[in-house]
């Protein structure tokens, strides 16, 4: 057994371990103390200690710095000067069964570094979503970390991190596993067009063919994102686009009067007796700016900028997308060319359709035969933020955050600013995959709403490197430190062979 240190004191929250001089211990390292099974400890802090009084150390340093080097050295320095690691027992394993530690490991017990075999209890779930490998400090173990897709998604997932810490990479790795399953459908609203991989490695390369791509400017093999104006209903705008009371009333009147052609009639400038002209003009302008639809005065036809929201065509797009999701596919919707509100609106229409369907399935008893649906939403505070909800009321995303679990629908919310999301919503996010974050306030919010006690992980979260994460979930016994592989390397390591079939043409 290669000894890394020895327990020399402390308490439940911080066991003090003297580090062996040639076995440097890092923040976040996982150590094992054996005895009645074994206890896994995680290093939370590191401190210098010395047997030599402070004055003597300062003097010795002065000799060194000022050129009186000579043979100035402490007697047996590895004994007199050393590092103390403060570690917290995170798990006790007895007979292969993990349990929360309720007692301290043996006093003066030697500790060693964790080995893969110590984590044998981390089993592969039935619907495994691969997140990465267990990390001990900055060392990566062979042990993979999975969460069960059905459990985790329906209980919502939060991915908080500042920019550049690998959020998109993590989501791509997760989606790659999910693309193999037909029991999970994922809707990915992609505001940066980075998931499918038009020109680089992305989900589009998944060999299952379970990834469907929609874009206003779809490449060959993708689907063109076009949505007929008649598919939009007033409730799709709720909580997404702020309308005044007068505008809301006008919208309701147009909808009552013209049913599915309500937007077309507004854009055409069709007057209704009890709607003021100014309200109609504002609504026309709003639909012009947000949806890009306007009336061409020369031809009298409704035109569409960008071609997404349109008068002709795109009638079945929403149903098609919902159908793909119900088939357990991953649908990536490229919203990078849309205005912010239009992007959320697209998501709102699709999510609304899925929510409505799943409500119906629950009432008819068909829900258990349907795949779980997850919705990946980037910059989540845009729809789940306190201010947004207070100002504009609930929207479909906040409804899913609160009630989605009943209908097997969950959110995968990605954000840099957790503090903007209400506590009630955060508390419903039962799996948090925490990546690096330098902002103290954000860390405090994350720690405050985590499924495990991360109160002494503040520094660890701040020092998480790119691709390093802590998985805190009600479905894991402890907050598991993971190293997420780089997506490009990860997909090369998966043994998917390109199927390059010759097509026999008959026609």
């Amino acid at each position: 057994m290669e000894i890394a240190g020895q327990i020399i004191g402390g308490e439940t929250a911080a066991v003090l371990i003297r580090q062996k001089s040639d076995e440097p211990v890092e923040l976040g390292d996982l150590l094992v103390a054996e005895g009645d099974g074994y206890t896994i400890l995680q290093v939370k802090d590191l401190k210098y200690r010395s047997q030599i009084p402070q004055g003597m150390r300062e003097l010795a340093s002065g000799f060194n710095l000022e050129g009186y080097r000579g043979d100035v050295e402490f007697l047996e320095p590895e004994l007199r000067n050393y590092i103390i690691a403060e570690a917290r027992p995170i798990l006790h394993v007895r007979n292969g069964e993990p349990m929360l530690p309720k007692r301290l490991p043996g006093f003066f017990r030697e500790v060693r570094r964790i080995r893969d075999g110590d984590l044998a209890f981390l089993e592969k779930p039935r619907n495994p979503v691969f997140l990465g490998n267990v990390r001990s400090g900055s060392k990566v173990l062979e042990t993979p970390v999975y969460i069960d897709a059905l459990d985790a998604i329906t209980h919502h997932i939060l991915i908080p991190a500042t920019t550049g810490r690998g959020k998109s990479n993590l989501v791509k790795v997760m989606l790659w596993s999910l693309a193999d399953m037909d029991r999970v459908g994922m809707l990915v609203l992609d505001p940066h067009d980075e998931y499918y991989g038009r020109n680089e490695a992305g989900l589009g390369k998944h060999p299952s063919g379970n990834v469907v791509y929609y874009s206003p400017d779809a490449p060959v093999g993708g689907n063109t994102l076009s949505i007929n104006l008649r598919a939009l209903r007033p409730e799709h705008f709720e909580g997404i686009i702020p309308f005044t009371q007068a505008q809301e009333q006008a919208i309701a009147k147009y909808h009552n009067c013209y049913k599915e052609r309500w937007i077309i009639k507004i854009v055409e400038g069709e007057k209704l007796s009890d709607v003021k002209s100014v309200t109609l003009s504002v609504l026309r302008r709003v639909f012009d700016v947000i949806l890009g639809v306007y009336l061409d005065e020369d031809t009298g036809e409704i035109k569409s900028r960008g071609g997404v929201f349109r008068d002709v065509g795109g009638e079945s797009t929403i149903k098609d997308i919902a159908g793909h999701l119900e088939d357990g596919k991953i649908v990536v919707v490229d919203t990078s060319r849309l205005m912010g509100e239009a992007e959320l609106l697209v998501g709102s229409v699709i999510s609304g359709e899925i929510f409505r369907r799943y409500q119906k399935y629950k009432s008819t008893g068909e829900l258990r035969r349907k795949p779980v649906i997850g919705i990946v939403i980037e910059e989540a505070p845009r729809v789940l933020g306190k201010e947004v909800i207070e100002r504009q009321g609930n929207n479909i995303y906040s409804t899913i955050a609160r009630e989605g679990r009943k209908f097997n629908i969950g959110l995968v919310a990605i954000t840099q600013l957790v503090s903007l999301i209400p506590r009630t919503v955060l508390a419903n996010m039962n799996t948090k995959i925490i990546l690096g974050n330098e902002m103290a306030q954000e860390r405090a919010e994350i720690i405050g709403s985590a499924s495990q006690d991360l109160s002494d992980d503040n520094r660890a979260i701040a020092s998480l490197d790119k691709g390093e994460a802590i998985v805190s979930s009600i479905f894991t016994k402890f907050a598991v430190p993971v190293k997420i592989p780089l997506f490009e390397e990860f997909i090369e390591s998966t043994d998917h062979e390109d199927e390059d079939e010759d097509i026999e043409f008959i026609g």
Partner: protein
Amino acid sequence: MYRFAHLSDCHLGAQKQPELRELEFQAFRMALDDALENNVDFMIIAGDLFHSNIPNMETVKRATLELRRVRDEGVPIYVNYGSHDYSPSNTSMIDILETAGVIEKVVRPIPGKKLGLEFTVDEKTGAKITGLSGRSRALEVDYFRNLDREALEAEDGFRIFLFHSAITQFKPVDFAEMDSIDLNLFPRGLEYYAGGHLHRRGCYLEEGYGPIVYPGALFGSYAGDLEENARGEERGYYLVEFREKAKTPQFRVIRPAEFEYIECDVTGKNSQDASLLIRKEMGEHDVKGKVVMFKIRGELSSGRTSDIDSAWIRRELESRGARVVQINRHGLSTREIQKVRVAESEIPALERRIFREKLAGVDIRNKSLMKRGDSLAVELLRKLENEIAPGEKKEEYERRVIEEAEAVMGVNLDDDNR
């Protein structure tokens, strides 16, 4: 200015009732006549000329005479396979008619790394026609993916692209479950896109493309089509004028018969009251000389659905002069009997749903079979529907059926295993 007629989905031989079969054929003859009267230079039939790849010989005989009449007028007819007349072994009736010089198939691949297509040049107008055939479950999507679009786009002249597929962007909302192909798989910038497969007409003007046109079914092959006719859907074909570009296509209505639609919702009524309601409803419609589509739907509060006597309804309507009566009672149920929900009204969709339900209950490890099983079963069913051809020996018929089944399933059963 030149002209051509664009027809599709004639589905000759689809109707089983002699009267409807006659009307179906009449619609075909009327469309050809109308096109000839409009001095077309050529005609296009964008798939599903016949309802089956080896149709009833009487149907073939009559169709051949009509097509030959057109050809004898000096008007060529350009076709592709539709999903119904598709044959994996090029032995469809379409091929036989082509061999006989009655029609011309324009789907002609050029060997190469990508799927190149050769244009057929219409002698008189110089129009260049090419395209792809349709297959069931949009299996032709693989052809589209491999299509050498650049070569087609680089060709000059008046180019027509013939296809038999639903285009995702233009699918009507009630066709959402239909397999379709995204427009971005089509070559851009051609002068006319002659579509078939969707049984509802539509003409779409999309930037970067010539008119994308679906004439819809000429008469209708399913009860749902006929119901749409009765509810006012106009059937016919498109007449297109062109020189360098196509002018906006003109839809020519073909109406071989008048239709009448009657719908009766019996929800909450017992079977006796429902019959009274049906009688009252019938009395409010003028059915003389018309094809009557009668839809009865709703949940009876008591009594059996069989208490609603279809034979009586038919007799009543016929006694009032109805030409043909079709009764749709798929949406009829009763509280007394456990409800059976059938969402689809079209037979192929219904079949597929049933197969899918059955597959879900079978323990099959082969994932691809789980995915494709329903389409495979439907395709196989289509082949098994083919009847013995006149003059065909039983052994020949058996061999043909087995070969076609092998082609569908992608297997090769040697004689010993048969």
